[in-house]
């Protein structure tokens, strides 16, 4: 009995860990869909909300050594959608509001460099408070601003400081990245 009760516990615990981690990794393998660099239809419909029905866009990618990589110039941006004909583009963000990765939004910038519109793909903020950032009374303030400190002057929604701060940071980043590498985006 002595050796058995010395050896058995670690063996049982190890077996359980192996089985559980194998199960979870298996489930992860089945369910994980790698959506980076794929122009999902949600993004397309978001783009259309901003730039009107007939606009179409492609995702800005470049392929180095055969692997097509999403060009983002800043790792906080998830991807950039570009419409070469009428020189418009949109920046996709997954921003942290009150919840981690709570706000998934697209910031559209037209050919004059002003913000044409903002469309929300997914908002996980607390209902009734955080979700107020979607109301166009708040979004309207962001329209046709061109520089980062203009976005800074917009005051937050009372009670939803985290959510509005998250959104404002995203807009500021979009505008500043746009001004810096405007040519590169529309070049090739």
């Amino acid at each position, binding site marked *: 009995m002595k050796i058995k009760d010395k050896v058995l516990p670690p063996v049982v615990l190890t077996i359980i*860990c192996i089985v559980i981690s194998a199960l979870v990794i298996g489930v992860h393998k089945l369910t994980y869909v790698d959506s980076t660099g794929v122009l999902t239809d949600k993004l397309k419909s978001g783009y259309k909300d901003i730039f009107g029905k007939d606009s179409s866009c492609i995702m800005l990618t470049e392929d180095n050594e055969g692997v097509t990589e999403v060009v983002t110039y800043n790792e906080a941006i998830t991807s950039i959608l570009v419409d070469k004909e009428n020189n418009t583009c949109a920046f996709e963000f997954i921003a942290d509001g009150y919840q981690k990765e709570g706000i998934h939004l697209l910031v559209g910038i037209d050919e004059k460099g002003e913000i044409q519109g903002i469309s929300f793909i997914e908002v996980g903020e607390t209902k009734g408070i955080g979700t107020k950032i979607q109301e166009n009374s708040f979004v309207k303030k962001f329209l046709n601003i061109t520089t980062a400190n203009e976005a800074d002057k917009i005051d937050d929604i009372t009670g939803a400081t985290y959510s509005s701060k998250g959104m404002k940071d995203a807009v500021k980043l979009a505008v500043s990245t746009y001004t810096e590498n405007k040519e590169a985006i529309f070049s090739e």
Partner: protein
Amino acid sequence: MDYILPVLVFATIGAVAGILLTVVSKIFEVKTDERLEMLQETLPNINCGACGYSGCGDYAQAVLGGEDCNLCKPGGENVVKKLSSIMDVEEKKSEIVKAFVKCGGDCNVTAKKYVYKGIQSCRASNQFYSGSKVCTNGCLGFGDCVNVCPEGAICIDNEIAVINPIKCVGCGLCVKTCPNNLIVIRPEHQNVEVVCSSTDIGKVTRAICRNGCIGCKMCERKCPVNAIKVENNFAIIDYSKCTNCGECVEACKFGVIKKSSI
């Protein structure tokens, strides 16, 4: 197969955890005699202190150390049997004890000095001119003993505590709680008792309570083994001499001495 590596890592974490736990529990093992747990399980765990120890845990330690097994009054027969079987000591007989209330002054035989509206507890009402009843050392009737009794054997009926002999296990918690010390623990077979403990002189007791003992010493003369004596105005039975003959029950004109049926 890039997911074999995480599974291996998790397996090592599990193995390390298991080994660490067994090693640590081996090194730091506190030697406890497993009989102690069994003893603790058999005891009723109401920590009443009737065995003289501060709680069932301490009594279990004592029994492990050789104390005899029949001190647990509430447990009664089967606890004694189990304890002695665990300790494989021959089983000693444990006498069954019961609690008795030494006061008969309920609301239709005695009156009230004032209407008490304070905190409903004997101890609290005892602070105001020792209770709301005219008799100062009678049962206060607010049920402190009821709250304390683990078996729920006591109930207040017409403002006097009545103990149900079947349910009572003789743990003695009510004895400690009664502010006027009216409850006594006694072996079950000695059931002749003086149902009064009023220290007032005869004339006063007669006036305030029809069931009161006036100290007339009739019972003292009648008792064949003079086991009963009147001390500070009420009769007290010395149970070492008393033979349960019941002579004093008839002798007492006011029916203060009663023989309770088992």
